């Protein structure tokens, strides 16, 4: 029995069909990434899962008593609402002082507890949002572009924390992201969405599929290169060593010649 199963889900917003005939299920302990161009319905799918948009057809079945941790794409806190970070973490259910302190340490922002939420930077707030979602000990963690506003280090920490949380809580993670290279490495399954499910499977399979290449255009190869580059792979796909390059002596194209001249001039 999966944690969550989506059967033939269609959603229309303002008369426009946004999602059409989605079939998807998520199992415990799985990290699923949704990729797709802007307006492909990724956020809408997450919102349908939490019940914020009503499906026009089909349904979303959650396991009984499923606890969802949700990190929205953006959250604007009205400055007229005074709110410390601790108070925010205690919404809607209170947690022990110790649990709160621990959650902040895990999020990498141990000193922010007494700060006003409205004064936080985008990246700090993003970490706090994740900390809050994790305090509920979710069975399913939904992340909608959760690394927006995080710096490089923060993003790396973030995904490391997600992986750790997944193994500790044995929760499933479903996330939307545009950082294809990082996300793909971190996920078990990639779902490529464009109003409908174009293709899904392991990151390698999706990256290799023609539908995915068509959707993401020439950038795809970059994602692939980055992806492979970061893993120890058989020597054939690794960067060629300098002496190899010399030995093979690739034919000099006009562009390359121009580039060489430029290099020469800059020396």
């Amino acid at each position: 029995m999966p944690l969550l199963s989506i059967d033939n889900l269609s959603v229309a917003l303002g008369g426009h069909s946004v999602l059409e005939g989605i079939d998807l299920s998520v199992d415990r302990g799985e990290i699923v990434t949704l990729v797709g161009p802007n307006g492909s319905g990724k956020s809408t799918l997450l919102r349908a899962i939490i019940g914020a948009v009503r499906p026009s057809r089909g349904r979303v079945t959650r396991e009984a008593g499923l606890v969802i941790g949700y990190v929205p794409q953006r959250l604007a806190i009205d400055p007229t609402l005074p709110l410390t970070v601790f108070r925010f973490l205690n919404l809607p259910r209170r947690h022990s002082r110790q649990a709160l302190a621990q959650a902040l340490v895990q999020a990498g922002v141990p000193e922010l507890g007494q700060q006003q939420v409205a004064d936080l930077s985008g990246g700090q707030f993003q970490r706090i949002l994740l900390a809050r979602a994790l305090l509920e000990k979710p069975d399913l963690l939904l992340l909608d572009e959760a690394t927006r506003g995080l710096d490089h280090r923060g993003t790396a920490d973030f995904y490391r924390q997600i992986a750790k949380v997944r193994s500790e809580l044995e929760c499933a993670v479903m996330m939307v992201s545009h950082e294809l290279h990082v996300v793909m490495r971190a996920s078990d399954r990639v779902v490529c969405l464009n109003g409908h499910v174009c293709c899904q499977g392991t990151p390698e399979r999706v990256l290799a599929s023609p539908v995915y290449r068509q959707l993401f255009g020439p950038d795809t190869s970059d994602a692939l290169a980055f992806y492979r580059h970061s893993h120890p792979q058989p020597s054939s796909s690794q960067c060629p060593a300098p002496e190899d390059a010399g030995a093979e002596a690739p034919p000099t194209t006009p562009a390359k010649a121009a580039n060489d001249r430029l290099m020469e001039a800059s020396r």
Partner: protein
Amino acid sequence: MFDDFLVRAVLAGLGVALAAAPLGCFVVWRRMAYFGDATAHAAILGVALSLLLSTSMLAGVLAVSLLMAVVVSQLSGRGYAMDTLLGVMAHSALAFGLVAVSFVSGVRIDLMAYLFGDILAVGKSDLMIIAAGAILVVSLVGWRWSALLTATLDEDLARASGIDPRREQLVLTLSLAVVVAVALKVVGVLLIAALLIIPAAAARPLCRTPEAMALAAASIGACSTTGGLQAAYWLDTPTGPTIVSLAALIFVVTSVVGRLCYSRSRAVGPE
């Protein structure tokens, strides 16, 4: 002791101030100020209808305020320009109410008492109603506090935690109608929204948590009503407007103090 009209007036003012404070905070946080206005202005229509139908004033006001609140909250989030819509609703409800009142013949009614309230004329039965309404609203808002707060922050965040934001909105709407109905006698139709918003706004610069803001708003509301009554007695001014004027003065003071404290803490740096 309830025989003294001044004692009754003070108690009535305190009751309304306490009920209005936490609700007023939500009105401010959710940017519903005009929503409060529309609900309050509809009350005059309720007065007219209950006079025409010779039903209880409370029932008439409650029914019309509730209807107005529900209509407005249904129309919100449907792509209308909310401020325009509420402007139309609030003032047309007031105008229709005033027109309807003029049809009531035979009964000489003191329109000013409904527009500006007449806290000194609060009777024992009025006091009972105010007490019951205040207890109802405070316990309703207290009971739903966390859920209301979460839904105020973000509807999706609330839904993900299993809270239905529409239900919480309904709680607020209901409470608002009750506060309007019980505050009618105290400050009148035109100034009810002021009693909701001004104490909450005055409390904002002094507070770091939502709970503190609700408590501070209640204290400021209580000070304004008791102090306003005193001032009206000395200066021989109308009580409702005096109460609201005092609240407004407190707002000015806390705003200035808050700004000074803020800039000082900025200069020292965040602790």
